[in-house]
């Protein structure tokens, strides 16, 4: 690392050191092609914390008791690009195939539990809530609990606020837009009823103590996250979901992701609307 007051630089050794540490802590692996993206954010934080150079910053971040700087950096390093009704065939699958199968099997009145991860700015879990209200008659008979998680605390706060750009809501049907959003200048504010339907939590999938208590879910949406992980982190995530699911529960991945290439723990289920993955009913 070479440094002077005018210009902070990140050497290749620094980059590798950081990338190895960040991978161990979060499961997110940066290829060499992401060097510019990573360097830019590291330099931003070195300057903001007056650390002077990478080494001082890295030591401060690693040994900070509160972990606040690592969390801040994590927030900067994660990509939060999504919109309402993205890959909506899976939500069609949820209301037309998955939920009817789940409720048919239910032997008690316990709530149906849905976990959306990553939460990002909330478009996906709120889409789930709106889909259930608009397209699933069962919502009048069953309690539903939606929990949405992300490693990025900044984006969770944004999700809780529920204020969106025109681009975020571009696929929302006009009647839904009228019913659930209020236009505020150039933006759209999601109504309180939908916002209250989702519980947001901070979770690091690579940290077992974080995920330990996530149990008894019937359906998990984890879309377009695993593509950012390497093979080992994908396997870890698949195993976390396995324990988070009830027997017979389902996982929906993004269209470019396949559980069959990650883990042998799941059965492939081909529904008319989508291919999803299921923890077998016999699983213990």
């Amino acid at each position, binding site marked *: 690392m070479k440094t002077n007051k005018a210009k902070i630089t990140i050497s290749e050794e620094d980059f590798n050191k950081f990338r190895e540490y960040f991978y161990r802590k979060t499961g997110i692996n940066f290829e060499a092609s992401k060097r510019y993206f990573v360097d830019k954010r590291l330099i931003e934080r070195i300057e903001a914390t007056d650390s002077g150079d990478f080494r001082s910053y890295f030591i401060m971040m690693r040994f900070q008791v509160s972990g606040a700087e690592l969390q801040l950096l994590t927030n900067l390093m994660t990509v939060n690009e999504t919109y309402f009704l993205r890959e909506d065939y899976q939500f069609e699958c949820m209301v037309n195939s998955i939920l009817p199968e789940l409720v048919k099997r239910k032997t008690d009145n316990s709530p149906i539990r849905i976990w959306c991860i990553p939460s990002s700015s909330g478009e996906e879990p709120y889409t789930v809530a709106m889909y259930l209200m608009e397209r699933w008659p069962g919502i009048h008979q069953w309690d539903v609990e939606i929990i949405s998680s992300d490693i990025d605390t900044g984006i969770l706060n944004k999700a809780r606020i529920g204020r969106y750009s025109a681009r975020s809501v571009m696929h929302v049907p006009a009647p839904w837009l009228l019913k659930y959003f209020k236009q505020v200048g150039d933006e759209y504010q999601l109504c309180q009823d939908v916002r*209250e339907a989702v519980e947001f939590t901070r*979770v690091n999938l690579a940290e077992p103590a974080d995920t330990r208590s996530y149990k008894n879910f019937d359906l998990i949406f984890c879309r377009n996250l695993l593509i950012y992980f390497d093979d080992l982190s994908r396997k870890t995530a698949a195993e976390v979901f396995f324990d988070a699911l009830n027997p017979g529960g389902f996982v929906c991945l993004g269209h470019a992701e396949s559980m069959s290439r990650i883990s042998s723990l799941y059965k492939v289920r081909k529904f008319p609307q989508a291919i999803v993955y299921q923890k077998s009913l016999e699983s213990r």
Partner: protein
Amino acid sequence: MAFIKKTTSPTINDGQHTPEVRDCQTLLTQLSSTDASERRTAARELVGCPDCANGLMERLKIETEISVREVILTTLTRLGDPVSIAGMVECLRSEDAALRNEVVEAMKLLPQEVAPMMLGLLADEDPDVRIFTVNVLESLCHPDVEAWLIQVISNDDHVNVCATAVDLLGEVGSVDAIGPLEQLKARFVNEPYIQFAANLALSRINEN
């Protein structure tokens, strides 16, 4: 009926509190629980215990539940320490074919860690271990894979080991493999499969 805002799992971490980290001895004991879910949880959380590889290996040898084995192997892979690697290598000698295959898959994820052991494993006295080692090379992202395979087809006397290696050389081989492939054909002149596989590998290399 409606949406429930308040989570029904009061233990779910809200991000404001540091979750409890369980002590390693408790987790090692939990590895023997009668509940498979408890064993998976323990195996996953043992990733935070650097000296737990022996305990995980002992459980792996007797564990019958596939889902628990998968988590144990993921944790051993994440640990990637010498004890974990040595344990995986030991499993290559297991009579349990499923376990061997699971270990081969796990070792493929550790190219840097298993690389120093490759020469020793490829010279192991048990030809089955040599074959499983070539299987590891199949998806090992390491620059020496071709050199190791060339060494196998140049020196190994066992036809099945060479056959496994030559199949793979057809996929990853370069012009460096042409001479050794010709010599392999000469060494096993009466083995039709070796002749066929070596010719196929040579034609693929020459096409490129």
